[in-house]
């Protein structure tokens, strides 16, 4: 379980359609930020990396994607220090976490639909 569904339930007041809407919004946002992170690593752009990681951390926190949030926070910290060696290791973990989270959410969305 990469997503804290209880948290999502709580913040949406168990509003199923809002949950779906929110999850879909998050998925689009997370995919886009994942791409930006990859680009930033390649370009060794610490600032862009930090911004993307920071945004992803906020979005993940908002929907209860707890592991992704943690991974994004770690990357955010590395990027802030311009530590690309650390960042390279952490990006892998983040992308794994991102894929797992998205998969779980898409599966959930299918069920909900």
């Amino acid at each position, binding site marked *: 379980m990469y997503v804290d569904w209880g*948290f999502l339930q709580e*913040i*949406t*007041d168990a509003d199923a359609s*809002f949950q779906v*809407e*929110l999850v879909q*919004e*998050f998925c689009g*946002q997370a995919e886009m930020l994942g791409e930006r992170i990859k680009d930033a690593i390649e370009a060794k752009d610490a600032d862009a990396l930090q*911004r993307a990681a*920071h*945004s992803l*951390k*906020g*979005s993940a*926190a*908002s*929907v*209860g994607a707890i592991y992704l949030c943690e991974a994004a*926070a770690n990357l955010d910290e590395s990027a802030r220090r311009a530590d690309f060696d650390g960042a390279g290791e952490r990006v892998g973990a983040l992308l794994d976490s991102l894929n797992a989270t998205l998969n779980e959410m898409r599966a959930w969305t299918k069920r909900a639909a």
Partner: protein
Amino acid sequence: MDQASSLRILVADDDPVSSRVLARALTNHGYDSKVVQDGIAAWEAVSTGSYQILITDWMMPGLEGPEICRRIRNSELPFCYIIVLTAKSAKEDKMNAIRAGADDFLTKPLNEADLVVRLLAGGRLVRLNRELQRINAVLAAQRAELATVNNRLIVQQEELNITLKRLEEASRIADISRNRFSQLFEGLPLPCFTVGTDGLVYEWNEEAATRFGVPPHLAIGRRPAELLGNDLLGDDAVRCIEAAAQGMAFAQGDWNDGDQYFLAGGYPLFGSSGQVTGAILSLVDVTAQRQAEAKLEEQLRTINELYEKLQSANQRLASIASLDGLTGIPNHRTLLERLTAVAEVFEQGGEPFVLALADVDHFKKFNDEFGHLAGDEVLKQVAETLSNATRGSDFVARYGGEEFAVILRNATMDRAHPLAERLRAAVEALPPKYRQVTISVGLAEFDSETGTTTELIRRADAALYAAKNAGRNCVRAWTPELGTQQGKAA
């Protein structure tokens, strides 16, 4: 939820997920909110002044949260409650946010209960701020009004100061002037006093005290009539005082006690609003003048009497005189006496005589032309010429007017005629000063037939008339044909 609905909330968050969650929570609690995705849009929306609460993300594209806070706090915008959304919990970041002007924090992920609590606190602050602003506005208005009133007071105070200074100056001058006038009044060499409309004396100067023997402290408060005595202060003077005290511009009266004469002048006194408050009276002692006038009248009367006496004496003198006043030769009266005497001598067998009457030709015309003084001159000249041209025994007199008479003694007509002709020629020969003078002469002889001297004169007169008729400047003797009819021709 009117507390909530009166507030407009701007949400600035570039994360669509969390901003959705937040917007939904706000809507659920009845708040009116708007979401923007970046810092620049957030600042544009906030700077319209229509948002009372701003919930802003910490990191955003364009402008970041702390910068927006700073801009709001440095602006003149109405109070805006700022809540910073952050995933961070580091104390240092929070300090930075507070320094930049933030009021509170919300940590992501959003806890709805925290949000509501902060919005309630923020709403209260916004309302307090609104109230404060309202009170401030009222205070500012009152302060402005007070300043206006104060300015007006300052202006009025200044005007009052100026007026006060003028009044002080006017009062100072009035004091000096009052003092001067009182000295003038006291020092006037005329008895002077004032009366009120009640007719009582208010002021009484030194000269009045001296002249009337009443000191001011006894005079003031009493009636002028009591002080001056009714015999001195006659009806005329009382009328003068009354008239002046009733406001007549000028009143004058004369009074006397037999020995002293005064000319009184009264002027009304006016109060500040123009009403009559009394009168000031001054008395000029005209005793010496009146006495001189009386003396002069007496002297004139004496002179008139003397003149009249002189006139009658002159008349009397003239009537008893024998000579003519103008020519110095015997007059008409003496002529008649002499004629009577000569006639008597003839009656008693004495010598014959002829009466010649000579008249200056055109004498009236001469007088009209050259004046009576010139006429008098001619008469004197003729008298002198006649006297010189006669014999010693003859008698020349002025008969009257321009007529002369000559008694040619011891002569009959044929003797008298050339004598008369000589007289006529002597006059004609006079050097003419104004014009040549001639005489006409009439002759009449006195004889037994003549009878009276009156008849003699009538005959001579008739002869003279004939001489005039004959063209003047000639001699004619009386003949019975001429008769004694009176005829006049100058």
